[in-house]
């Protein structure tokens, strides 16, 4: 007997097809090698209270800057976010499906979807997107971050373009700016005096802002603090009490302190 908690099944009954399912035979104009588009920088790490996820706000097309207010850290429910690098269209579609799928499951079956099931749902959607990913126009490589109530700790998972999922022990970063900071994150975490997991909220946010600034120094597709429009990167924390978006005023204070000011000289 069918339990009826699968939101994707409900969508299919109403005629919905995931973009990748219908476009399997579309070819891009040139015969491009498989090369995921991932012009952005996303990072996530464990800190003292849970998990921090941060991303820059820039959306690009080639060498053009399209938009400086893109939010790439998307809320899925009260305890989880998906941070996206890759094709925004497909990524937003996946986030929208998941957001509804988690809620639908809870309401329909009267129980919360387990963490393992949430990870699996995301993985399946990435697999469904394979045809678009292989054409180099629709790959999505997300980070999934959540707070696991049962384990009483934050958890970070990253995916490859085919949907395989890996849990990150301490930190991870994806996107075109990630090579510029992956080594810096390792260095900070190992010899920076304090590991990420020992940092309090302010220090964690301050370091995330420093790292995104570093990425934007070397990667043209990663935006930094936009002075003229006063736009900061998106920074979210997930703790035992749930998901919180860090407000602009708090970011401004920590930006002054960590990126421009007195803490800037030391890690």
């Amino acid at each position, binding site marked *: 007997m069918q339990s*009826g908690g699968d*939101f994707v099944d*409900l*969508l299919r009954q*109403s005629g*919905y097809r995931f973009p990748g399912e219908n476009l399997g035979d579309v070819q891009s104009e040139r015969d491009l090698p498989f090369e995921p588009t991932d012009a952005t920088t996303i990072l996530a790490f464990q800190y003292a209270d849970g998990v921090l996820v941060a991303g820059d706000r820039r959306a690009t097309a080639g060498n053009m800057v399209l938009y400086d207010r893109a939010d790439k850290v998307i*809320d899925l429910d*009260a305890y989880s976010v998906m941070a996206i690098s890759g094709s925004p269209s497909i990524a937003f579609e996946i986030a*929208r*499906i998941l957001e*509804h799928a988690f*809620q*639908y499951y*809870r*309401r*329909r079956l*009267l129980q919360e979807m387990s963490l393992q099931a949430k990870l699996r749902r995301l993985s399946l959607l990435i697999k469904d997107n394979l045809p678009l990913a292989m054409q180099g126009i629709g790959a999505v490589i997300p980070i999934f971050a959540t707070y696991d109530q049962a384990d009483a700790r934050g958890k970070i998972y990253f995916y490859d373009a085919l949907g395989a999922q890996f849990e990150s022990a301490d930190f991870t970063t994806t996107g075109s700016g990630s090579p510029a900071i992956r080594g810096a994150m390792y260095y900070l975490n190992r010899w920076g005096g304090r590991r990420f997991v020992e940092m309090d909220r302010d220090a964690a946010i301050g370091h995330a802002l420093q790292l995104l600034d570093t990425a934007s120094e070397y990667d043209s597709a990663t935006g930094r603090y936009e002075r003229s429009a006063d736009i900061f990167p998106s920074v979210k924390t997930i703790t035992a009490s*749930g998901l919180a978006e860090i407000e602009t005023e708090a970011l401004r204070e920590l930006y002054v302190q960590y990126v421009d000011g007195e803490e800037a000289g030391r890690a």
Partner: protein
Amino acid sequence: MMLSDEPYRWAEAVANRRDYIEDQIRTGSPVVGVGYEDGILLLTLSQSQQKVFEVYDRLLLAGIGHSTDIENLRQAAIDMAHSIGFNYSEDDVTLRQIVYFGLGPAMKAGFDDVVRSPFLARVLLAELDGQEGAQIFYTVDYDGAFYRHEGCVAVGGVVEADVMMVRELSGLDAEALSLSDAAGAALRAWAIGRWIGKMDEVPTDAEELEQVAGEVDVVDVLVTALKDMEVEAVVLERSQLGKNKYRNVDAEEIAPALAQFKAD
């Protein structure tokens, strides 16, 4: 069809069907909905099974009657809400759509189809801060007839109970009540509905009915009921962070309202 060839027998069959359904539903535990300063409260008493359900971000459903029939209606409402919410937007999910185009026709069809079992259920739905207003309720009867209410609502085993419960609630200021006061008012209304639903002969005369309702010993009904039933209270709460406004109310939050009805 044979039944429609004979108008008298058709009318008799419908009347029999009504009697049968009403007989099945009448002793059920009523559900009361009342607005309060931060949203909407739905309250009922039950032996253990859940009776108030989350449908969507700002929508609740509760029913009285056969639990599997309520379950089927609940699932239909949830499916409809999520399809609309995904394909259009969260703001397009309205109680009016779900009642007018979903539950109403489904229950009407169930009632009309004489060779199948009808929905043995009366349903109550609540919507917080939608297009129609801040505290909107709909009730859908077993035959698919639906009614819209603002501020407060109640569904019991018989229509007379609904009327008397709503009368009990009607003087309240639904935008100013505290949660605990709203729970107290809902409990009193519940007791009146419970008493009327359990009467052998419910008075049909309005004056007589009002007199009966006025004489219900609310404290006694609740003290007796609370010996083997538990209060289930669910809110749609504006101050909840995020889109989803559903929350189960802890017994402690409405303890002051409950205190007067607890046996020693």
